[in-house]
């Protein structure tokens, strides 16, 4: 194993160097492509909200045929029950 204290000293020193260089921080932030960042889209209006209004819609249907998922899950194909496991402890 590598010498962890030396790695940490170098890494923290690198961080502190960012603080003296605003352009360096800005440059680091702009590297999102390299970082593999994925934008979730223009999403700032989609949220659950409290309202003080009632709901007029008729009572929910309780038809038995609805009792199994029937949506875009048909788009998901392949080994659903044998997916490769991600080791969560690593």
């Amino acid at each position, binding site marked *: *194993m590598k010498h*962890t204290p030396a790695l*940490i000293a170098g890494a923290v020193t690198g961080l502190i160097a*960012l603080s003296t260089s605003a352009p360096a921080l800005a440059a680091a932030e702009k590297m999102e492509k390299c970082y593999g960042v*994925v934008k979730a889209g223009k999403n*700032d209006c989609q949220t*659950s909200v409290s309202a003080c209004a009632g709901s007029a819609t008729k009572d929910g249907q309780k038809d038995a045929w609805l*009792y199994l998922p029937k949506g875009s899950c048909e*788009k998901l194909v392949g080994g659903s029950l044998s*997916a490769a496991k991600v080791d969560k402890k690593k």
Partner: protein
Amino acid sequence: MPTLPELQRDFVAAVFDADSERFPGEVRDGRFGGARLFQIYRNNVFLSLTGALAAVYPVVQCLVGAGFFDYLADNFIRAHRPDSGNLHDFGGELAEFLAGFPACADHPYLPDVARLEWAYHRVFHAAAPAFDLAALGAVPPEQYGALRFGLSPGARLIVSDYPLLAIWRANQPGAGDTTVDLGAGGERLLVFRRALEVEFKLLAPGEYALLDALRDGATLEHASERALAAAADFDLAACLQQQVALGTLTNTSTLS
């Protein structure tokens, strides 16, 4: 005549139990009988809570279909009644509920999709405090290993056996007829917010191990050891620099 606490308990009981005999008896018959008038409130409660769940879990709703989602929501609301006057707090147990919902047993990826959407929801509404680089400069170098960085309230980690990001994308508005190979492998995801946007980042095993340990309160030394154990070639300096730039780390209570 019931006392006010009795009346309120009876009201709530009758919202969740349509066969409750007692409550409509407390309602004055008007042009319509009390049972029909009370049903308006029962309907309002379930419709508004179902709507709140659908707003937080649009991908789950898309995957299972709107009809089944209403059935799922009805069952969920009965099992996990809201406990806050703030609707944004409602629905956090859906992933756990899906994992034990028999009708979804053939769709074992659904709980992870729900975890991702709940993370998105919480991150969207969380504060995103800035990392204090100046305070870091005041720390003596011999104490660097004892530093404790935290994960920002505006950042969450998700690990899944399924290709969550592909599933999420295939169920966005306008995604078209793409299919997703469920056997494509799992992933580790960082969900975080910068300014007004929620973003995702796929994490390598070392990055995930570091952030997971820091979130759990480990010192920088212990977290680094965990990351190096997960990936021998883990680049600590690059990872910390990226995460500080992305605003996912905090150091408000830096020193142990």
